[in-house]
């Protein structure tokens, strides 16, 4: 039955070459922890991706309850945490995932750095990877404000004050992020939009480029 559906679609759209392209790529012995246990260092990139997927899924569920305005934001998070079935798990996964993804990405970066895997011909992939790192930090910074509790508000105030000290770019960045003079209603909606639409869009684009490049070039050889 499944085979028939596959054949039906394949006849019309010729998906076999596409599918073989995704499925057929070799995993060399030196990156396979089943052969050399020390190859577990190659897992960090995959785990970063795994947590990113969890972040996207848990984030989608969080927005079912979260209300991005200063009157209701905190109440909606409080409700989610204390009243909604499994709300505490969903929020907990998003909260801890945010830290874990930084840890895994950091370890992945160190692995690539110390193995010199960024050298020719993989320079561009390294640059894209560092950009992903910055986007992740941006996601962490904007997500921190959203619960609209004390630490959120004051950490954001400090963050924007620090950004303000940068000449020329600072004041522009403040206007863009805060949406005005004070850290208030405008800031929260802007951070929400940046956290939920702008940065994830950038992240998905960059990750697509990251994966395309690794598929095209293959994993760097053993040291």
């Amino acid at each position, binding site marked *: 039955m499944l085979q028939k559906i596959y054949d039906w679609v*394949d*006849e*019309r759209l*010729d998906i*076999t070459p596409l599918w*073989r392209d*995704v*499925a*057929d790529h*070799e*995993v*060399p*012995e030196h990156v*396979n922890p089943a*052969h050399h246990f020390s190859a577990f260092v190659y*897992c960090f990139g*995959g785990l970063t991706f*795994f*947590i990113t997927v969890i972040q996207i899924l848990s984030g989608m569920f969080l927005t079912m309850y979260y209300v991005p305005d*200063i009157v209701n934001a*905190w*109440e909606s998070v409080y409700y989610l945490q204390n009243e909604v079935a499994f709300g505490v*798990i969903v929020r*907990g996964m998003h*909260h*801890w995932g945010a*830290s*874990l993804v*930084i840890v895994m990405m950091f370890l992945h970066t*160190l692995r690539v*750095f*110390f*193995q*010199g895997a*960024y*050298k*020719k011909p993989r*320079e561009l992939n390294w*640059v894209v990877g*560092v*950009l992903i790192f910055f986007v992740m930090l941006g996601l*962490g*910074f904007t997500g921190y404000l959203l*619960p*609209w*509790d*004390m*630490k*959120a*508000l*004051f*950490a954001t*105030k*400090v*963050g924007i004050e*620090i950004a303000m*000290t*940068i000449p020329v770019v600072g004041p522009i960045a403040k206007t863009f992020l805060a949406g005005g003079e*004070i*850290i208030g209603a405008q800031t929260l909606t802007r951070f929400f939009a940046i956290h939920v639409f702008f940065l994830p869009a950038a992240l998905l684009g960059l990750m697509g480029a990251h994966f395309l490049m690794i598929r095209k070039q293959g994993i760097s050889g053993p040291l």
Partner: protein
Amino acid sequence: MHRGKGMKFVGDSRVPAERKPNIPKDYSEFPGKTEAFWPNFLLKEWMVGAVFLIGYLILTIVHESPLEKKADPTDAGYIPLPDWYFLFLYQLLKYKYAAGDYVLIGTVIIPGLAFGALMLAPFLDKGLERRPSKRPIATGLMLLGLISVTYLTWESVVTHDWEKAKTQGKIVDVSFDENDPGYKIYQKQSCVGCHGNTLSGGASGPSLIGTGLKPEEIMKIAKEGKPPGMPPNAFKGSDDELKQLAEFISKLEQK
């Protein structure tokens, strides 16, 4: 790719009519014990992911994600703290030569150089040698960066007042009868200005919940004040009202 004359297509589309077999590549010619990504290696990755997910879920269940009380921009005494992975940048700005007149060193020059070098690493370290020991400058600079970030994060953690941090943002959950005559008096008096609508305190007045004071002691403070913050004669009203207020506050307990 098949091209040229004799190609057949499905209907009037551009999809070739000739089917290609859906079989995996042969990996036996690849060096070493190379295996296919799908499904061999993906299954192993899946298992690593499952083990990781268990740890992740245990962490989630053991440590509930924190939520402090609702943001109150008027609380000037709050000690802010960013998320842990920004602590090193935050700590950097506390040093003399990275703050005040030199703040640009802390906000632009040092982070700019560090992250700029990270981004441009492939163009700065162009040699063909990949082993860390064979490229001492790159390895050394990265180790220096790692040590600095670890040290700054550590310093930031040990200098932070965790005791105060624990109490300052706490969600105060008190339920009291808002129709209590004592509370009505409280709201009419100047008390509410400093001690807040929910009696949980604010920037200039402490919380009045769970003080453990007797009504007589509260009456005394309301009349005579309590240095340094509480002024004398703050209460303006009859003795009866004062007594009701004192009894109301004395009864408040934290749940």
